[in-house]
């Protein structure tokens, strides 16, 4: 299987491994800031995987918004809440339960996925950004506007919630 791999497949594997390992560190790290940095690793790799899968625009949006904005927001959150950096336990006492549930979820999902899509091949070819734009502003104009209103509401809501008065 490895021998038959093409360039994009090798790239996919590489990024997938990075994303998986970084993911484990996000939930396993004893330091909040480190966890956030591992999150950058996961999100960046996933963005790269989007690009490998042909979704160039989504990939760059992923990197811009997630890495550029959301992780920065999270870091601000860590900073403002003076979260203990190292030392104090970051996990609660139901780790075994959590692990069993997560493992079962993963097992179940993987089993179903392979049973259903095990033999399905996909052909990788890029989707042009122009195509995304066309689709977004013709077929999905209404959801697009709705999302913009949602963002505005979230903006107002966040300000109202976090404001000191």
């Amino acid at each position: 299987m490895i021998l038959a791999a093409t360039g994009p497949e090798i790239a996919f594997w590489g990024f997938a491994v990075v994303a998986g390992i970084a993911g484990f560190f996000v939930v396993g790290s004893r330091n909040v800031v480190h966890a956030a940095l591992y999150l950058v690793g996961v999100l960046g790799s996933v963005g790269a995987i989007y690009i490998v899968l042909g979704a160039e625009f989504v990939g760059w949006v992923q990197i811009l918004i997630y890495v550029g904005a959301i992780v920065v927001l999270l870091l601000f959150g860590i900073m403002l809440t003076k979260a203990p950096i190292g030392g104090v336990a970051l996990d609660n006492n139901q780790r075994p339960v959590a692990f069993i549930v997560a493992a079962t979820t993963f097992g179940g999902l993987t089993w179903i996925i392979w049973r259903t899509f095990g033999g399905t091949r996909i052909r990788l070819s890029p989707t042009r950004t122009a195509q995304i734009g066309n689709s977004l502003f013709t077929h999905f104009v209404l959801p697009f506007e709705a999302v913009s209103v949602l963002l505005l509401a979230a903006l107002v809501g966040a300000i109202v919630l976090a404001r000191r008065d």
Partner: protein
Amino acid sequence: MTEHAYLIPILPLAAFFLIIAFGKRLPLKGPEIGIVAVSISFIMSVGIIAKFVGAHGAEHAREISTRWFPFGSGAHLQIGMKIDGLTAVMFIVVTTVSLLVQIYSIGYMKGEVRYTWFFAALSLFTGSMLTLVIANNLLMMLIGWELVGICSYLLIGHYWEEKANSNAAIKAFITTKTGDVPFLIGIFVLFAGTHTFNINAIYHKVAVGDVSHATLTAAAILLFGGAIGKSGQFPLHVWLPDAMAGPTPVSALIHAATMVTAGVFLVARLFPVFAASPEALNEVALIGAFTMLFAALIAMVQDDIKRVLAYSTVSQLAYMMAALGVGAREAAVFHLFTHAFFKALLFLGAGSVIHAAHSNSMRDMGGLRKLMPTTYATFLIATLALSGIPPFAGFWSKDEILTEAFRAGQHGPTHIVGYIVYVFGAITAFLTAFYMMRAFQMTFMGKYRGEAHPHESPRVMTGPLVILGALSVVAGFVGIPGLKSGFGSWLALGEHEVESANYLLIVVSVLLAGGGLVLGSRVYRTYAEVDPLERLGWFHKVLVNKFYIDEFYMAAIVRPIRDRVSRATLWINQNVLDGAVNGAAAVAKISGDGLYDQLDQKVVDGAINGIGITARATGGVLKYLQSGDVQKYAAYLFAGIVILAVLFTRFA
């Protein structure tokens, strides 16, 4: 324009929400939104009626509708609009009066409580009425109908801090609701007969004779019950005079455009249903004939200027009902059209006077002619119009009703009904002129008797008066008898016959109206502390007490339910139930004493305590599940999902 007529009701309805949301932050605190909305509606209404003017109305009628939701087997409810001459005329009436009332209210309601809310409610009121008017099916009409009812409740009770006002609002609501019950049943009866709520479909079914005569008669009489309630016809007229508790602009809106005309509109809209049943039509005609005279008599002796106008509204609505009853649908709507303008004018004029004199009673007024020249002049126009003096608007419509009634007496299916309507109508015309002149004399002539310092109202209030005054003069010209494409042809359902004028009847009605005016001004030229009408003796007393209808309802309906039933239940409670209970208790005590020691103490208590202890112990354990820790909950949730997913894949 017609395709977008749905905007006409939607704009005021939208204005309602906008005023509530933003009204208080605007420079005028709300009215501007409602006025802009209803102005656009008004302009659109003009555009729509322009299609019907001078044309054969039935050709321009449109119905646009869409499915709303299905129900039952195969039936579905529509949401849609039916634009014909009747709708167009109602649009004009409602938007014009509403627009002017809202402008007027800026001045009248200045500094009053809940100012912004008041304008929001006015917008909702207007929008509801327009919904009722535009509806192409009975259920949508019912929605508008009930919305109108609730708005009138809100507005009549605007000053709810005073118990009397909130009582008046409740009375209005319950009384009209009494009529709404038969109305609702009538809609269902009609549906049972025609299997549709759509008005055009009902027309069609009735026209081809698909529906049995009995069903139509039952439906028409039940539907008329709703019209009686909303339009304040005897015996459900009692709420209308009490509705004066609301602010005066509201009275103008209720009486001229939005509330009471709904009943007349309903009968006019479903006229083919009524026309198919002579019995129902005769009922409409007779109730109308009786109410018009009945209300006019009461109006003669009222001292509260708004009550005079209220009874006058009851009487004039009865005119319309009677006209519908003798088959003169066009004449009835014509009277509705002209009446809206001068009745709104009368109420707004009265409001202006009340605003200045700080009193509702005409005994505290007088001599306002010099002090309030604009109000005086416009009120005079309205008085003449209501009395039916040519060439003012009321003359043309009232005369047409009388002519049609007389013609129904000559050629109609039941001659006697036509003649009864004519005779009652003629007497009422005389009385109307008389009591309007009385009110006019007491308010504007003679010397000022009150304590306040009256002065003319601000421009924003007199402006609407002047516009309505102009309309009260000219509105009648569209329906001059013999006019080929006059008012009647706008809203004719089929072929419209041009009726020639009956000059003898015209002369008679003008003489009656003139006689009433002359007599009124003679009797009340000089103000007398004792009303000259008191010479009528006991009859005067009956009139002042409004034929004791309120007292009758109180004694016959309210008190029996409230007092007798409660006293009866008390008696039953004291003697029957208590006796039984006491007896049972005595028996129980004797046997209980014996049982107590053995059964209760040992077996029952043991069982009860056992259950209690078990429940407590279980609860004590289970409460730890309710830890307040959301992550625990999330863990249960995910575990449950996983288990369910496994079960589904294994067994499904």
